[in-house]
Each structure stands twice: as C-alpha cells, then as structure tokens.
C-alpha cells in the first residue's frame, strides 16, 4: 500500500481522485448556489389606483391614490439590467403631505428589517403623503451567503392560511460577482478607513456615487431617490447581535433627534393590558459625527431627510450563537448559549455580555413596525405646527434659530401630517406574550399567501 502511494502511478491516481471529488462537489454546490441565487422572494403589491375618502372640514371627499413600482436604475442609471436594480414600491395618496421612506434589506443577514418592510408594504393604507418602501435594498447581497457564517439559505413564515412564505437569508456584503476585486483597505469618500469587507457594505457606502463601485451605485440610487422626491423621513431597518451595545435602539441624525426622542416616548407609552404589554423600551442615540458612510449620518448630511436607523436583537447574527439552523432566525430566543449568558448575567449581577435578550422574529418585526408607527406619530406631533418645529430645532442644535432653520421648519409645517393607517399593532405582530404563551396572530397573519 505504502509503495503504491509513493509510486508515480499511485500519485497520479490519488491526485485524479481528489480532483474528481472536488469537481463533483463543485458541480453539486454550483447547482444549488445558482438556484438560491436566482430565487426571487415574493412580495405582494398590486400596482394601480386605489380610492379612499377623507374628511375635509365636514365634507367627505373621495380621492384616488396610486400604487406604483419604480426601479433603482431610475435614480442610478448604471444599475440598469444588473442584479442590484431593486424595486421601490410607492404608495402615493396624491394628497399633499410629507413622505416616508422605509428601507429594508440593506443587510440580508438581518431579516427583521426586510420582513417589517414587507408587513408595511402588504398592509399600510396611505391617505395623506407618500410612502416609499424598499424590501431588498442590497439585492446583490441576497444572491449569496457570507463565507464562514454557515447561514441557511432560506427561512419561512406561515401565513394565516398555513401557507409558507419563503424569505432568503443572504450575506451582509454585495456579491463578489458584482464587485471584485476589493482593495486592501476601504477608504470612504470622507477619507475614513475601514476594512476591505466594508467596500461591499451598503451601509458604509453612503452617500454613494454614480460612477463608483457597485455598492456605491446602489447607495447613490437611494440618496438620489430621497433627493429627487424630497423625502421627509427615512427609516433604515437593521438588526444587530445581542452582545452589541447599541441595540433595541434608534440612532438618529442630529436633525432627527427630537423626532427619535418623541418616537421612543410613544413606544414607552405603548400599552396592551390584555396581552400584558406595558411599554416597549427603546434607546435613542445621536449619530456619531466621526462614523461615515452610514444612513443616519450621510443621508442626514447630504439630503434634507430626517434620517433614523433602528436595531433589534438578532441571535442568528451573534458571535455567541450555538448551532445555526433556520429555526434560529425565526426563534432566536431559544439559542442555548444566549440563554446561558443571560442566566449567568442575572446570577452574577455584574458586567454585561448580552445587551438585549434575543427574541423571536415576530417580536423583532413587531418592534420595527411599532417604531415606524411611533416615528410617524412623533412626526405628526412635532412638525405639525411651526412652533413645535422651531422648538425641536432649538433643542437639537442648542443654538439660536437661524434663517435657514426657519425656512426648513416652515417647509415641514406646510406639509402637514402623515395619514397612514392599517399598520398592524405590536401585540398583534408579536405572537408570544411576556410569559412565552402563544397568542393568536403573529407576523404571518399579516402576510399575503404567495401567488402560486
């Protein structure tokens, strides 16, 4: 045997068989990758007119709103005919008012953002203002998995009719097919240095550039969308690992800080006695001035929008997580090691390992949707009168109100309030109560059955 192995013939046979095994594995994996890569997630959205009526000072008026789909390439032409040319769903009430952009799917390994955007897309009724929803902000990142993260390809949520809605779990970064090679170090247009991997991270690429890297072109599409439509509020939905210290939080650009504070107050006051929910805690952070490329910094600086970013606690993204199955994505609270870390933390009562206990996908989606709703409420409370708008500016700037602020506040005041209804409530979306008992509804209840 040993002789055979050392002989030239033996050598060739062994090399060839290793090569053969490698080829077979590559072909099998290649086929399954291709299938995953081309899989299109289903989102229910019917383009066309819709009618609603509103009370105009005592008289009931009937108005026709419009639902339409735009493409990223309308705002960043070089994305035309590429994987990243994602859809922008627009629900336009055709009544003058403020506009809201909800950004889901920036990081495909943070599923609650995409699902929350989907829940809003399939349920919200807009009767004043405009709602823009993006469910797959970095579509290219949905076509592959992140190396060495061992993530499942898909996870599913049952609709109320018991049909599985399948969602993809992708990578944090743009696919190598679209952007390669990467430099040894990523230098953002502000001069900030980041790891090479962040070259392909959409939330480090803002404000983007029309002729830049693929990811910068995608970021440019979003920045340009906000500029061209003069979008009033932008909410970017994310998740973070439970051991990340800035979690269950809203990070706001300094101009949107008052709005975030008001929204957080709305969430603290949220109450559903029947289901034992008394307030949903969320922290507010100001966007750091030194950290560039993120939505809450650059969209706030480069456009007029009020930029906010939300984080929920996702076990499937954490470093402590145990075995990785698709169940971990949907039921993060079950993870063995996070449970142990929490037990230990409680017993020893000292430094934290876990900053927010990981929860179910339902809870995380419910939290995002409640945050969006609370921000809308907050906006309506703060910006509906000129005085309030001045006040919030005064507070956040700690300075005297100058002429440009007055003009902007004037602009907000003229736009008036959002009227967006039919947003599912926190307790309806979160199907497990505080004691872990299953409630009736859940996220699936608010999702449409897939077409086929």
């Amino acid at each position, binding site marked *: 045997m040993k002789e055979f192995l050392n002989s030239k013939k033996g050598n060739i046979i062994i090399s060839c068989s*290793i090569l053969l095994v490698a080829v077979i*594995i*590559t072909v*099998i*994996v290649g086929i*399954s*990758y291709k299938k995953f890569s081309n899989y299109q997630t289903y989102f229910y959205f019917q383009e066309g007119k819709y009618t609603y009526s509103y009370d105009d000072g005592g008289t009931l008026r009937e108005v026709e709103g419009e639902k339409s789909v735009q493409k990223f390439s309308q705002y960043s032409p070089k994305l035309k005919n590429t994987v990243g040319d994602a859809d922008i769903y627009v629900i336009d009430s055709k009544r003058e008012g403020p506009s809201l952009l909800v950004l889901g799917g920036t990081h495909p390994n943070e599923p609650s953002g995409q699902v929350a955007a989907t829940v809003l897309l399939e349920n919200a009724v807009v009767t004043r203002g405009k709602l823009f929803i993006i469910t797959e902000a970095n579509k290219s990142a949905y076509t592959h*998995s*992140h*190396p*060495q*993260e*061992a993530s*499942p390809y898909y996870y599913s949520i049952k609709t109320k009719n018991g049909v599985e809605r399948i969602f993809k779990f992708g990578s944090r970064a743009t696919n*190598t097919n679209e952007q*390669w*090679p*990467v*430099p*040894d*170090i*990523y*230098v953002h*247009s502000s001069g*900030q*240095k*980041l*790891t*090479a*991997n*962040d070259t392909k991270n959409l939330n480090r690429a803002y404000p983007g550039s029309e002729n830049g*890297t693929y990811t910068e072109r995608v970021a440019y599409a979003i920045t340009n969308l906000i500029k061209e439509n003069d979008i009033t509020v932008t909410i970017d939905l994310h998740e973070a690992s439970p*051991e*990340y*210290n*800035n979690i269950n939080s809203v990070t706001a650009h300094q101009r949107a800080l008052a709005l975030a504070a008001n929204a957080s107050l709305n969430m603290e006051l949220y109450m559903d006695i029947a289901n034992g929910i008394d307030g949903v805690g969320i922290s507010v952070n100001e966007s*750091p001035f*030194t*950290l*560039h490329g993120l939505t809450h910094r650059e969209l706030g600086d480069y456009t007029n929008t009020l930029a906010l970013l939300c984080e929920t606690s996702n076990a499937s993204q*954490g*470093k*402590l*997580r*145990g*075995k*990785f*199955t698709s169940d971990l994505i949907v039921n993060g609270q079950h993870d*063995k*090691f996070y449970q*142990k*870390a929490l037990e*230990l*933390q409680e017993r*020893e009562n*000292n*430094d934290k*390992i876990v900053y927010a206990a990981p929860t179910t996908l339902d809870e995380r989606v419910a939290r995002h949707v409640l945050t969006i709703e609370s921000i809308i409420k907050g906006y309506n409370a703060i910006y509906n009168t000129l005085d309030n708008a001045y006040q919030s500016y005064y507070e956040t700037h700690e300075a005297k109100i100058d002429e440009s602020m007055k003009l902007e506040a004037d602009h907000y005041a003229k736009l008036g309030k959002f009227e967006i209804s039919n947003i599912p409530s926190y307790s309806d979306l979160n199907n497990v109560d505080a004691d872990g008992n299953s409630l009736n509804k859940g996220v699936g209840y608010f999702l449409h059955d897939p077409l086929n």
Partner: protein
Amino acid sequence: MIWEIELLYFAAMIVTFVVLLLVAKMPSGLALMCSAVVGITLGAIFSGTEWNLRHLIEGSFGYFDTILVIITAMIFIAGLKASGAIEYISVFLVKIFKKAPTVLLLVFMLLVMLPGMITGSSLAAIVSCGAIVAPIMIKMGIPKKKVGAIIAFGAVLGMIAPPINVPVMVICDVVDIPYSGFTAPLICLTFPLAIFVVLWLSRGFGKEAPKRIGMNKNTLIENIVLSSILLLVSLTFLILYLSSPKEASNKKLLLVLFILFTALVIGSILAVWLRKPYCEEIIVEELADSLNLEITSELKPYVLAPLFIIIILFVLQSVLPRSVGLLGSPLLFVIAFIPSLFVGRKVNAFKVVSDGIAKSISAMALLIGVGMFVEALTLTGARGYFVINALSLPMTSMANQWRYLWQYISIAIAVPIFGGISAFGSASILGGPFVMALIGYNEIIVSSALSLVAAIGEFLPPTAMSATFAAKTVNEALDVKALPDETIKEDSEELDIKLSREEVSQPEVSQPKEEIKYIHITKTALVPLIVTLAYALLFIMFVAVHWPE
C-alpha cells in the same frame, strides 16, 4: 458551560485533524478539510444542523482574495529568482553590511515587516520578502529554525504594524469605531518588540550557542553601538517624563511607556551581551559556492526594477486607494512580475509561472482547509461555545475584585488559541466582545493590543499559519541560484522530474539538511512569544488606562 455537546464536535474535529496529520501523514490542508467534514456530519447527526456540501465551498471562499494574493506573490518571487534579482540583492546587501551583521539582521526584519505593513497580510510578507532574506540568514550561519522564527515574527509584527492592521479593522467594524488614531499605539506595540525579537532570536545561548565564535573587536563595537542606541530611546522617554509639567495629562502615560520600553531595552541589551551572535563578520568569499558573487557586475541594477515597481504600486495603492486600490493586490503583483521577464537573465515565463503556482498549492490547500474548518465550527455552534466560555470566565470567578485579572487571563488564553485557527477570526469573534467588555479602557489601545494577542495564534496549532509558511520558506530557501540556462528549454513534461532531481542534488551548505516544521519554529520562538503576550497585556492593563482619548 464547559461540558456541552459542542465540545465534542470541536474535540472530534481536532482529533481527526491530528490523526490524519500525524498517522496518515496527510498534508495539513487536506486534514483540515476532512475534519471539517467530520464536524459538519456530527452536527447534522446530533444537533440537526444542515448537512450540505455547500458549507465546504462557502467556508473556503472566506480566503478567496488571500489565496489569489499568495499565488501572484509566489509567481512574482519566482520571477525575481529566475531573473537573478534575488541573488543580486543578496550579494549587494551582504557586501554593504559585511562588517555589521546584526545591523543587517535589523534591516532584514524591517524588510520582512514591510509587505505585512502595506498589505496587512503576514503570508504576503513571508512569501515575498521572507523568501528573499531567508537564504542570506541561513548562509550567515543562523540555524534554519531560528531563521524561520525571525521571518515568521517579522511577518506577524508587520501585519500588526501600521498603516494597515486588518485584525484591528475587524474589531473596529464590530464595535463601530473608525479606524483612525491607531498609528502611534501600533508603532509602540510593534517596533520595540521587533528589535528585541531579532536580537534575541539571531543569537545563541548555552547549548545552542555557536561554538567557534568568541567576541572579536568587530562584535564588540557593534554591541556597544546597538546598546547605546537602545538606551538612548529609553532615556528619551525618561527625559520627556521628567521634563513634562507635573499636572500634564500625559505624565503617567510617559512613565508607563518608559517602564515598558526600558524592560524591552534591558531584554535586548541582555540578548546582545549574553547571547553570542552566529556571525561576527560575513566573509563574502565563503559564500561563493551558493551565491554568484560576480552577479553585481554581470547584471545591471535595473534587474531590481520589479521590486521597485511593486513598492511604488503598493505605496500608490495606499495613497490613491480609490483608484489604484481598486485594482487589488493580486493584479499589482502580476503587473510587477511582467518586467522581470525582460530585465535580467533570460526567463522562461511558463516555467516560472508554473513554478510559482506549484509552490503555492500547499498554501492554498491550508487556507481552504482553514476556511472549511471555521465554517464547520460556526455551523455546529462550536464557535459560540468558544466565545461564551471565553467571555464568561471572568464572570464566574468567585471574588469580584479579581474579575479584571480573570478578564486578562481569559484574553491571554482564549484569543491566541482561537488565533491558532484564524487570527482574523479571533479578532472579530473574541476581540470585539472583549473590547466591549473592558469598559472604561481606551478602545484604540485595547483593540491594538488584542490584535497583537490574536496574531500570536499565527504560531499555534492547528493551523499555525505564519510558522507553517516560514517553515516552508526556509526549507525551500537554498535554491536561490537561478536555474541554469539549459533547464529553461526543457518542455513541461520533463520539468517535474528535473525539479525533483535538483532537490536531491542540492548543494550541502554548512548545515545538515533538515526538514523544518512549524513546531520547531514555535518552540524556538517561545520566549519572544511569551514576551509579546506579556507586552500586549501590559499595554491593556496600564497604557489603555492612561492613553488620551
């Protein structure tokens, strides 16, 4: 939390790896791949994780770019060898520094660090500059395992030294701080260590001390000059400390740095005086059997053009990251390789390229294996097992006041051990959480020091990345001489036989031909490794508290 099923997966994977490596004599890359398959299978059976071949491919894709850098760097170096550039630069340096061999070694250390500093990859440093300096050091009489240890250390410290330190960038990414303000701390961490390591490793003591060498005038002068320069550095900090006003905010920091540097300076001076150098003076003529001494007159200096081109390209890459940077390091190596076909000896491009690729195959296999191994750890939850135990060790300690001590102990144990699988992985998986756990410490200093601790893993099993590559490099170091012209015309089929024949008939240099393994290098480097670990921990304990925000 110690007794979990994930420990079984991890143990089974390690046992598979060791058995295949030592009993079945499999290459380490292949053994890692097999142990990954074992891990994935066990996870599927006992934990119900997905059994899918795609995890093997996805895991290895984590090193896609690194692999390309290694292949192209190897081809580049093969080009330099074939054109005569390496021999040229060896002869050139030896002639300049023949009277000051220790200074030459310090220059070598800097040379090895350079590619690591620019690209952030220790492997790039070893396969490029490491391969250039290793043969000269061997010819200076330094034992191969020490040569390996020096280049491995140079590469690792180069990876940590500024401007580019990937482990720190990875930590920054996890804890959301910008990668700026790291230059000074990283210089303080790496350069004093580099000097100490070279002086320590390039000399012998006790049993392993060189026999025939005493202390002649030349060595004496060199020792005195070196010691005085080192003392001067330490004194500068003392003067800075004494002259700074009492209420100055950085007073304590200066004192701490003075103490730390002085400790290293004393170590270095002890190394200089108590340990004997292997080489007092390089007698150039003695090298004639392995180096062509006439090469400096035979070839024109522009044979070094590819070397300068690559330096210029890498500098341009860091100056113009948004244009040249987008080309990627692999392409830069290829661009710099092309001129070596025309500037020196006649080069057979096909032969050189196939030679470069052949030499990088085991490197590629190792990286692919590590990628699969990490993916299997992640999938089965063994990675999480590692992290939770590392983070909870300080929490479970009995007395509260000892908690910080436990924190340091768990850093000292867990970070290098995981670094033995992947230094970058250790930085991202453990580094980030540890930075967050050490509240109140300067994040920049803690991240910098943690990156150094993680890099120690480059010497530790199962992968011992830098040590393994350094071993490979010193084992292959002796064929510096370009192949004689007649081999160039051989067609590819006869090539392999020719190559293997050459290996057999390699000229015997003063040392017996021995196969160096990574474990020899790690053992040799044990003292510097312990010093490095202690130095990094002291940085966290004392410097991180006083460093200004």
